[in-house]
């Protein structure tokens, strides 16, 4: 069944048993991202220590793809340098925008290669990208100093702007 290319066993495993889930202290920035079309939401915190992603924690509501992606993303970026993690984000974004034409490198993307099948479903690409975009936004806030120190980065509950690739007509 074609559906199995999207719902890979790795994805369903992460969906059933998500890693790093639950908001944790300490953190340097917290963001809230939404998919206005489907109602998926994620609140995500990052902790950056000496240029390294020390922790990512999140609380999310959404479909199996968005839940699994948050879990896989956290696994991938925690412990990596910000620079390396941002390179991974670009690699994953390229994969998701490929419509199934890119052969992912398992040595680089690890479990995230399982999302290659999702890239063939345009309506679901934004589900897979939600937590990555949230992480990128939070990390950029810390790096640029916009987040302030000691977890004061939550901008009053105001939803972050929807990233370009997540926008689509209602």
């Amino acid at each position, binding site marked *: 069944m*074609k*559906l199995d290319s999207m719902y890979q066993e790795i994805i*369903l495993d992460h969906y059933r048993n998500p890693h790093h889930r639950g908001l944790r202290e300490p953190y340097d920035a917290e963001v809230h991202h939404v998919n206005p*079309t*489907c109602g*998926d939401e994620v609140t995500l915190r990052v902790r950056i220590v000496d240029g390294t992603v020390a922790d990512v924690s999140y609380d999310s509501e959404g*479909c*199996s793809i968005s839940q699994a992606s948050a879990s896989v993303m956290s696994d991938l970026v925690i412990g990596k340098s910000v620079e390396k993690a941002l390179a991974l984000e670009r690699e994953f974004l390229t994969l998701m925008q490929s419509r199934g034409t890119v052969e992912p490198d398992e040595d680089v993307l690890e479990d995230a290669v399982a999302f290659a099948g999702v890239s063939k479903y345009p309506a679901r690409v934004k589900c897979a990208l939600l937590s990555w975009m949230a992480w990128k936004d939070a990390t950029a806030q810390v790096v640029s100093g916009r987040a302030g120190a000691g977890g004061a980065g939550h901008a009053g509950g105001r939803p972050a702007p929807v990233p370009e690739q997540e926008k689509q007509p*209602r």
Partner: protein
Amino acid sequence: MTAGGAAELDVELVRKDFPILERTVHDGRPLVYLDNAATAQKPRAVIDAMRDYYELHNANVHRGIHALAEEATALYEGARDKVAAFVNAPDRHEIVFTKNSSEALNLVTYAFSNAATQGEQAERFRLGPGDEVVVTEMEHHSNLVPWQMLCQRTGARLRWLGLTDEGRLDLGNLDEVINERTKVVSFVHQSNILGTVNPVAPIAARARQVGALVVLDGSQSVPHLPIDVTALDVDFLAFTGHKMCGPTGIGVLWGRRELLEVMPPFLGGGEMIELVTMEASTYAPPPHRFEAGTPMIAQAVGLGAAVDYLTGLAGGAGMAAVAAHEHRLTEYALARLAEVPGLQIIGPTGAVDRGGAISFLLSGADGRAIHPHDVGQVLDEQGIAVRVGHHCARPVCLRFGVPATTRASFHLYTTTSEIDALVEGLAGVRRFFQS
């Protein structure tokens, strides 16, 4: 003929009029189209009317004296007559063509904020601090956001009627929410997410009592129920063509003539004027005052054809036959969905005062919720098209504490076997996600 006397819709005959229903999806699976609250499919009559218009009559309207211009104008204005008759409008000048329901509702809200510049005749549309606007918690965003924006522009206060746990309007505090400060009450006739058909009479009566204008969002009712604007006793009715088997890009604002005549315009431009100088302009009478620029001519022709098609169904029983068919479908679907383990309907669980848009949540054998997006994806693989998400009615999702729902919605060509396919499809979804 049924005992009631109204001719019944022959659904198999109706389906032959819709070419798209013959197609298959995902390697040969028959299409089961249950996303009718989002948009309806188009009968051949509508497609043909639009092609004929472009092949034979295309010209701009209300200008030019050549043969094509006259034909195009006659077709465009003829569509207005058809739509007026369809909703039993007393006067064809009460039908304003818009892009869709959203634009029709925005037209009214901008008339309110433009009233400040229009002198005494626009008094009924004047709004400011101390005034109140009333909507309900079950509005589609298109009948909520324009009113929020209007209140921001004018300083008026937005209030709303809440919902009961069954998904009905809570009218317990009607007299408090609609009061002498209320200038306008705008509410949905049939909810696109809950399926609820709201009681218009008590709300309109209370609005009349306090001198407020009444706007009805008929986006989901005009395509499914016989509508008579004089019987509804409201001031404005907004609806859209594409949900009633017409094309996209055309909607309608019906308004009482005496109100349209004093209502300030929304968009300025060609067609909507009387006299123009460099300093100022006067405006055309309605409906053209509200139709600036070249209108959606082919779309109006298509909508006219859709109205003819719907009116002629079941030997002229028309919308009464459509409503009866959909009521039977809704009863059948509610009973069948109640058999699905782990399924919870969001909205009324009985078919009384309820249309054929059914939102639900589904959980697996382990009790864990299966997200609507996943439900919709696995249904799609089986050829079943439903809508998932918050259905542009996020406050309803917040009210019921759910992030999203799956929604199956029916139309005149929906069959009971398609509802059976949905029920079987949902069993497949539960199997797919069992751990």
